[in-house]
Structures are given as C-alpha cells and as structure tokens.
C-alpha cells in the first residue's frame, strides 16, 4: 500500500433490511484517499453518502469489502476495537452538531480525550487550546443552548480535532447554517486542512462546500459515479 494512502476501501457493499424491504445502500465502492486530502462526497438523497461515511469511519460495519485506514483493516475488527480506534484516530462533525446539551463547550470538547484515557487536567488544557484554535475561548463554559449556530459548529470542530485525529469525518457540516456562517465554517476547515494537513471527508449537498474541496466524489444509487479533482 502507498504510504500516503490513508483510506483504502475495496468493493464495499452494505445492504439494509427494514422489515420486508431490502435496500442495497452501497453496491461495490472502491475509494482511496491520500493523507491530507479534503474530499467532498456528493450526490442526491439516498445515494449512499452517509452510509459510505459510516462504513469508512467504522460507525457501521460493511457487509462485504475491505476498509483499510492508515494500514489497519477495519473489516476484521470487533466492535470494541473499532470503537477504540475511533476514540484515538477519528474526529466527527455532524449536521446537527451532536453536542451533548448537558455539558458545557469545554466539557464537550474534552470528552474524546477523557475517553482515550487522558488525565482530566491534561484533557481540560487541551480542550481549551482547541477552543482557542476555533476562536471560542470566551465561550468555554457556556452550554450549547447558549451558543449560536456557528459557535456550536465550531465547538464540534474543536471536539473533532482535540485528539489529533487521522481523519475528520463531517456529514453535512454546514447543512443547518446560514450562508455567511457556512462560509466561516468552511474557511476554518480549509485552514485546518492547509495548516495541519488533516484529512477531511465531507458529505454534503452544498455545491459551495464541494467547490472548496480539492476532490469531489459523486455518488448515485450506491455507486461512485464520478471522482474528480
């Protein structure tokens, strides 16, 4: 495998069985992503974008195929191993923020570090750093309900970055934001990608978001239709 390849997915299949209905969400996906790439996965609703993201990130298990992240195969991992791997090497940004409403901003951000086994004091310091990176030092002790949409999303990004992940997975990161805030968020992501060399996989409907990414992978009906840089 190419050392620069961070994601190598081969012949990924995933089918959902809901009652009497069978839905083949992924019908044989092959995808490679280089370290430090910013990839947008785009396509119409129901094309399998989120399913692909879930399988590649280890949130869900593919029915067939092989997924290798940083040279480590996810396919053979147990749920425990995948969970552990996510804690150490993945960051997540979702459309609806998924901040825990009962924790403050800094408590949300430090959570992945605590899960990884960091000392609480160290975790707190790093979390504050991460918030500073995204310009939210002054809002560290506020609950998500006290933050604006953009601030919440920046908090989510800080959480995604705090444990220095190999890959950041973002599912519709600007889906619930206005255009100005979306631009701010994308500026942040692009800056982080450029400065830290983080690999980003973004699932999005937004053409503007896609345009900011170095590579666009278009999907349709569970297959990659087009992969352009």
């Amino acid at each position, binding site marked *: 495998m190419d050392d620069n390849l961070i994601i190598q997915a081969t012949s990924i299949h995933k089918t959902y069985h809901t009652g009497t209905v069978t839905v083949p969400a992924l019908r044989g996906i092959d995808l490679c992503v280089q370290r430090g790439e910013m990839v947008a996965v785009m396509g119409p609703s129901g094309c399998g974008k*989120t*399913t692909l993201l*879930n399988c590649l*990130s280890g*949130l*869900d298990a593919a029915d067939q195929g092989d997924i290798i992240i940083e040279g480590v195969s996810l396919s053979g991992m147990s*749920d*425990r191993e995948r*969970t*552990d791997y*996510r*804690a*150490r090497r*993945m960051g*997540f940004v*979702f459309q*609806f923020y*998924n901040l*825990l*409403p*009962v*924790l403050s901003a800094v*408590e949300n951000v430090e*959570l*992945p570090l*605590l*899960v*990884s*086994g*960091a*000392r*609480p004091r160290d*975790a707190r310091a790093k979390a504050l750093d991460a918030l500073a990176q995204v310009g939210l030092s002054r809002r560290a002790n506020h609950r998500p*309900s006290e933050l604006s949409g953009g601030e919440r999303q920046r908090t989510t990004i800080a*959480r995604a970055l705090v444990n220095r992940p190999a890959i950041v997975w973002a*599912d519709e990161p600007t889906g619930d934001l206005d255009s100005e805030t979306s631009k701010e968020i994308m500026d942040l992501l692009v800056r982080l990608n450029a400065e830290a060399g983080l690999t980003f996989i973004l699932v999005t409907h937004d053409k503007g978001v896609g345009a900011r990414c170095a590579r666009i992978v278009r999907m349709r009906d569970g297959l990659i239709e087009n992969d352009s840089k």
Partner: protein
Amino acid sequence: MEKLFGLSMNSIAACLGSVLIIVLFALALVAWRSRVMFKLGLRPIPRRRAQSTLIVLGLMLATLIITAAFVTGDTLSHTIRSLVIDELGEIDETIRLGSGGRSYAPRSAAETFFKFSRYEELAAQLSGYEPIDAIVPAIQESIPAVNTTRRRSERSLQIVAVRPEDAAFVGAGDLADSTSNALRLDDLGPHEVYLNAPAAESLDAAPGDELKLYTGPKPTTVYIRAIATTGENPQLFISLKRAQALFDQPGRINIILISNVGDALKGAELTHEVTAHLRGLLTDKVVAAQIFEMLNQDSVAIDALREAAADQRGNTQQDLLKLADGLASPKLTDETRNLLADEGLTAQVQSILANADWRSQAARDRLEDLFADLSELGVYDIKRDNLDQGELAASAFTTIFVVTGLFGIAAGLLLIFLIFVMLAAERKSEMGMTRAIGGQRGHLVQMFVFEGTAYDLAAAAVGVALGVGTGFLVALTLGSAFAESGLTIRPYMTGRSLIVSYSLGMLVTFATVLFSANRVSRLNIVAAIRDLPEPPHSPTHLRDRLLAPFTTIVEGFRHLRRWRIFRALWTWIVGIPVSLLGIVWLGFTTGPLTLLLGLLMTLAGLQSSTGATYSLGVSFAIIGAGLTLRGLLALVLKKRPGLTDRIAFTLIGLGLTIFWSLPEDAFGLTQEFSYGAEMFFISGILLVAGAVMVVMYNADLLLRAILSLLGGARHLAPVLRMAIAFPLANRFRTGLTVGLFAIVVFSVIFMATMFKVNEAYFENIDALTGGFDLRANTNDTNPVPDLESAIASSPYVRPSDYEVVAAESTLAVEMRQGNDRWKTYLVRGVDAAYLDNIGYDLAIKAEGYETAEEVWQAVRDRPGYAVIDRYGVPSRQSTSIIIGGPEFRLEGIYFEDETMPPMVVEVREPRTGATFKVTIIGVLATEAYAAFNVYTSQATLDHALPFALSPTTHYLRLADSADPKSASLALENAFLKHGLQSTVLAQEIKDGQKSQRAIEYLLQGFLTLGLVVGVAALGVISTRAVVERRQQIGMLRALGFQREMVAWSFMIESSFVALLGIGLGAALALIPAYHMINSMTSDLPGLRFQVPWGVMSIVIGLAYGMALLTTWLPAVQASRVSPAEALRYE
C-alpha cells in the same frame, strides 16, 4: 366494616361509586364527541407494552394500599362479628337486675338474682310483640372451678343454665358434642354437667372428670358428662332448676335472654327499637313521672340538651333532640319515658346538665338517684354493643393502615405526575404539531386524559386484586400475632369495600391524571416542534392575568354588541369568576397570599394550641416568603433566572428543613400543642420536600465535590461525567424521583426507629412490672385471706422462694371531680408490702414531692392519698386509640405536665352508696403495667367501706435463685382449691411484645410497599432516557464510548438518584425520631435513641438493589444502540 372516619361505608360506597360512574360517563361522552382524540390517546398503549406495564404497576399502588387497608378492616370486623355471633348466638338483648353498666363491680349472687315471676310478667307483656321471637329465663354467672381429677383451675367459668326447651338459645344452635350427637340438658344426671371445648381446654378436662364449683366458700362437686362444641369462652351447661339449686336461689333467675326476629345478625338491627320498648315496660312509671316533673319545661335543661345535640350525630343526636322535645311538652309520653330509661342517654344527659350548671348539686344528685331507681331491671343491648365495639376496632385498624399508607399513596400520586411529564416529553413534537395544525390545548388534555384513564382502569383493577392479596396476608400475619390469645382471624372482604377501593383508587388517580394532563399540555408550539427548551413566561403574562377580569367584562360587552347574548352571559357568569380565581391562584403561586395564609394559620394555631394548624401555618409562611422573594429577585436579577430560583428555593427548602427538624422548644415557645396522627404524614412530607429542594437546587455543588473526589480516576472520568450531567440537566424530573425514594424510606426508617425504642422500652422488665415477678389471682368467693402466711405454712411450696408477697384488692367504683357526674373507674387497695416494694415510676408528682418513692410512702402513711394510672389523665397527643373501658378522666392536668397540685376526687361504692374522698398526688409513668386504676392504701378502703374487701390479687417478688415458672406452678398447685392462677409477669409481657412486634413488622412492610413506586419511577425515567438520548448515545459511541461505558453511565446515574433519595430519607427520618424520643424520655427515663441499623441496612439494600435491577435492562438497551442508526434518527 360499617364506618370509616365516622361515615357510613354504604354512603361512602354509594357516593364514590356514583361519582365514578358520572366521571366515566362524562369521559365516554367526550370520547364519543372527540373520537379522533380518543383513538390518538389510546394508540400508544399497545405499541409500548413494556412501558404501559410499568405505568400500570406504578399507578396501581394507591389502590393497592387502600384495598389492603379495607380488606384488613373487613377481616377484623368479620372476625369480631363471628366471635360475637358464636358467643351470643340468637341472643340480642339481656335483662339483668340493676344498672350493671354503671360499674365494673363483681356482685354476690344475692344481689343479681330476681324472681322468676318477673320473667313471666314480662313474657306476658311481650306476647304479640312482633320484633321479639323469643324470651328466655336463664342463669348466667361466672364462678371459679377446679378440676380435681387433673388438678387444674379456671377463675372464671361461666355457668349457663336454661330450661331444656330453651337450649337452642345457648350458643350457636343446639348443644352437640364433637361427633354431632345432640346434648340435651334433661339427659343430665343430678351431678352431671356439660362443659364446652374452651372450658375443657382451660381445665384440661375430659368426660368423667370431677369438678368443684365455687359458688360460695363451700364448693359443689359435679362430673363432666360430655364436652360441647359451642362457644368461645369457657362455659358450663346445666338446667335452670339445677342452677337454682346450685346457687341456692330457688324460684329465681338472674338474666332474661331476648332474641329478635331474624337470624343472629339481622336480629341486632332491631335492637334499638326493641330496647326502647323493653325499657318502657320495665320503667317505674312513678319515678319516671318524678324525673319528668323535675325537668319538664325547664328551659335551662332543654336548651342545654338541644345545644349538646348539635355536636352529636346519628342516633345520639336524634335521641337528645327527641328528649328535649319530650321534656318541653306538657305531658309525659311513652317515647319520653323510654328515652329516660336509656342508661347511656341519661348518663349523657346528666353530664350535659352538670356542665350547664343546672340548678344545684343537691338537685343533680336527687336526679341521679331517681335515674338509678327508674328501673329495677336494666336492658342491655349486648350484641349491638359488642358489634359496635368490633366495628370501632376494625375502623381504627383501617384508619391506622390508611394513615400509614399515606406516604405510599403520596409517592404513587407523584409517580403518576412524573409519568405524565415523561410521556409529554416523549411526545413533545407530536403535541406541537397537533397544536400547529389547529388542535386546541383542550384536545391535548383530552388525549392524555383518555390514555391516563385507560391506564387508570387497568391499574385500579390490578391494585384491587393485589390489594386483596395483601390484605389477606396482613390478616394472616395478625392472626399469627394473636394466636396465643385464642383469637382466630377469619380473612374476609365485602363487595362494598372493593367498590370503595376501586372507586377511590380510580378517582384519586384520575384527579392526578387530570392535573398532570392540564400541566403538561401547556407548551410553546415552536419550542415543542423544534425540541427546544420552553421559553420563560413573559411579563405580559402576569399583566394579562391581572387585567383578565376587566378584559372579560369588555369581551362580554363585545358579544353583546353583536347580539350574542348567551355568549355574553356565559363570559360574564363563568369568565369573571374564573379570571378572579386566576388572580387568587396567582397570588398563591407568586407568594403573597401564601404568606398571608401562613401567617393567619400560625396565629390560629397558637391561639388554639393546635399543632397541625400552627406547623402548617409556619410552613406556608416560609413558602410564601420564599416565592415572594423570588418575584422580587427576578426584577433585580433579570438576566440570571437560574440564580433567582436557586436563592429562593434554597431558602424555602432550608426554612422547611430547619423548622421541621428542630424541636418545638427551639423556637422559645412554651405552650403545649395537641397533635394528631396526621402530623406524622405532614411532617414527613414537608421535611423531605424541603431537603430535596435544597439538594436539587444546589446539586451542582454536590456533584462538583463528587467529581473532584472520584473524577481523577482516568477511566471513570468520562462515565462519571455523563452519569452526573444528565440528572442535573433535568432537575424537576430528578427531584421528583429523589423525593419519591426519600418519602418512602423516610417513613420506613422513622417507624423502625420508633419501634426500636419500643424494644428498648420492653427491655426494662422491672420498670414494667414494678419489680414483681408473679401475679397470683384468686376468686372472690374463696380468696386466700393471708397468702404470705399460707405460703409460709404450705408443704407444696418453698417459702424462701417468695421474698415479697404483696396484696391488692379491687373495687369497681364511681368517681367524680367537683360538680361533674359520677363516672366509672377502678380502685386498687394495696397493702404496705406493695407500697414498700412497688418500683413504678411516676410521670407526674404533686408539688412538694421530689421522688416517686416519696409519693408511694405518702400513699402508705396517709390514708386517702392515691396515685392514678396514665389513662385516667387526658393527653394532648391524641394518637392513642382506646376502645371501651371506664369513663373517668382527671381534669385540670395533662399527661405531658411536669407537676400537679394534689387533686381531690370523690369516690362512691355503687352498691352501698358509701362515699369517700381520695387525694391524687401522682400519675403513673407510661411503662407501669396498669390501666384504669387508682391506687390507694388498703387502710383507706377498710376505713371507708362498710364491708370487708378481701385482696384477690397478689404480687410476688421471687428470690434470685427461684425459677419463675416453677415457683408459679407450685403456687397454683398449693392453692388449687382457691382457684389460684399464677402468671409470670415477664412472660406475659414478652407474649404481648410478640403480638406487638408482628404488628410493627406488618406496618413496616406496608410502608415498604411504597418502594415499588420509587423503583417504578426510576424504571420509567431510565426507559424514557434511552429513547430521549438515542442520538446522544450514538454520538458518545462515535466518540469512543464502549458499550459497557454507556451501560455504566446509566447505572451510575440511577445509583446517584436512588442513593441520594434513599440517603436523604434515611438521614431525615432520624431527626424527628430523635426529637420525639427525647421528648418521651422525660416520661420514660429508660428510653434512649438508637439507630435501627439492621432495618436500615435491609431497607437501603432492598431499595438500592431494586433500583439497580430496574435500570439494568434500559442500560443494556442503551449500550446496544447502533451509532450509525442513532445518528440518522431525528
């Protein structure tokens, strides 16, 4: 059980049943009109079966407790009724010589027998009187008996003698032996008798045994022919003629038995009518006329009777009013004469006249003498009387269980509210949508009410079924508690009780459902749809409320302008009062009116010395002040509503907790308040509520402390963080659950602490027995004149075993204080040996006496001095239930007083009329094993009475080396012919303790039922939490939370809530228990506060274990949430 809280059960059943039918009918009507809402309301029930089951279990507890209490009451009522029926059979009334009900005097045979011709006269007068179907002459007398064959004695063997043709009225049905062979009285030989089974057991007798019957100093020898199966008390059956010979009373009887038409139970319903008729026949018309002349048209007397009647109910009220009317009319009617012949009524009349200071003391004494002479023969409604006492006892027990169960019921109602809050949270967006598309708030209320009623119907049925089982279990436990006393509990329930239980359970639950539905249906539509927090009420909300009456008036005019007259009227007639009520309600919820109410109640309580009013007043004042402060702080701290609430509710909580934790005298109050049993419930609820408020509004500080303590552990940190954050985020829900656990655990631990004190109380046997080891009773007819000397000279005992032999005589008397009427009591004449050795302490000593010993010495040395037991003195804390017993109570002091002046009481011996005075200089302490006794020296009685009164009770202290049981048996053996029965006092107390302990365990078990509620609450919250937090769980899993970390966070969260509630409840319970025990030590110096570690450990362990068990399944479900699916779920 016929009555509860003074109300007829039939009326309660009819009322509740009717209300339930009306409510269900109204609901059915609304359901028919809003079929869509009805279907929407019921839809979730089959879809979430586990949740529905949990809800039904939670809702059924109130009904279970109520049903169990009623089944217990029915069981006791039925048991006592059966005993009465078994004992009395067809006998409904009896007629005896003299006013035997006025005293407890044992009388000689000569004083109780009357001519047979009196029976014949009465029978002739009653022929054709339809309510009576039999009138039977008889002899019934209790005498001592000795089984010389087996050397056993019985102090009180009842001789039952009737004519052979009247045998059917003896016991229940004809006499028969165990093989159902009929036993006929005319089959008995000249020296033969029948015994019944209880007598045979008491005398260890079998057919053929020789009995000695002591009708006088010289016994009569008889032989047992057969053992009859009838009766519950020891009885002996012979023919009337034989009994007349036995008692040397030829041609005389001492009782007439009356049977009313109908069976053994139905006959008692005619008692009132029959008794009035009999009294009319037996009354001396001349004396009646004299009484009538004294009272006729006397306005003072008549007004006093009418005034007294206003405070009475039922038959007593009717009778007093009829008597007043009768006395006001110019002629003496039969009805008035019959009323004057009613001893119970005339006793009350005399009390009323004494209190009204009618005429002079001499006139009242003359009236009393006339009443005593009114009839030679007295009529006694024994069956009705016993049945009524039984009902009272059953009602009292039911009341105890209902009051005890109030905590569980309160917890159950809180749970209902919590469940509906959870359901509303679950359906928030659905409710928002419904409102958005045009549904009214009332539609939401309907949906919840329909759903809640469906649960309610099922829960009430389950509750009744389980309540019946619980009630039977209670009955069986009571049965084992009283087994040694010979009482056989017969489990029973009536359909009426089931109707009441079901209806009450349904209605109480329904009311809570309605309240909850009304509360949870208030929502902001946008916030509901978008699942955002509810925005705070805007100030315009308050302004709108205050202006509502005026806007309503204006609205009415608007309708009027458009010629909508009915709508205008409806707006004014309904709308204005509703809006005014809204303002009043606002006044209460914002504080000012609550504060005012609290202050008024406090003042009223202080004036009337009523503990409940005073305490509730102070509590309302604290709450009102806190709410008012909250309103004021809100103006100042506009941007920090959280801080406003924290300050206000913390202060309210602290205020309530401190007030209910400290003893009364901590506030410098010197007056004594009277408290009822309800204070246990009120104090518990408010103490717990206060503490929960303080904890919940400052829980973040508590949790910060926990986190700093435990959060350093690396792998525990993320789990702990989540486990603590969620309960803190939903303070109301968490507070309710903590409160549920706290209330129930509080009640159980408080009760256990008080019961532990009882155990300690019973440890000091000497304090209970006064230092004596045995009590020996002999019979009246053949007492042992000088037991000490008899023991010294008896070859059957070892005199050195008996260190002290003290004698006590018993005299049933009437006593009065000042100008009051004569009331029954008992006097004990005790000898010097008793007074020198009695170790009873005194709760109150007269001024000038420092120690109990000084008082006892004064009683010994100064004739006429006496000590009274604690039941002869009223108490401010009216939690005791006393059924029956003598009437006299010393007035002018309370049992809780520190000291007393010497109090002179007049004493009258009813047979001879001999009157003398005693000066009471002390009140026995609680632990003295005595009830309804005045103790004075034997010398006092010897001097005052015109006859010799022999001691029939002896108290003995044994040498240390003597075995009590052997010494007791030796005594019985040595004095068999005197019918001496000896009791080891310590054993008697222990046996009594066993019964008491069984009841204590029962009550504790009853209280522990409430734990089901707390556990159900946790189960509901945990199940709901899995659904609510599904997306968050998905995110946690995405971030790296392993499955078991998710499960652990749920378990720790439940543990935190459960342990907080349990810990609060347990700790708080010890506070009032400590104060109560401290206040009791002044009366019972041996008492000490002890923490019931054993019971506490069991309760805490059980509660926590059940809580974990309930949370385990939701925790496992949460751990199995797939992150990918959860994060898709919106």
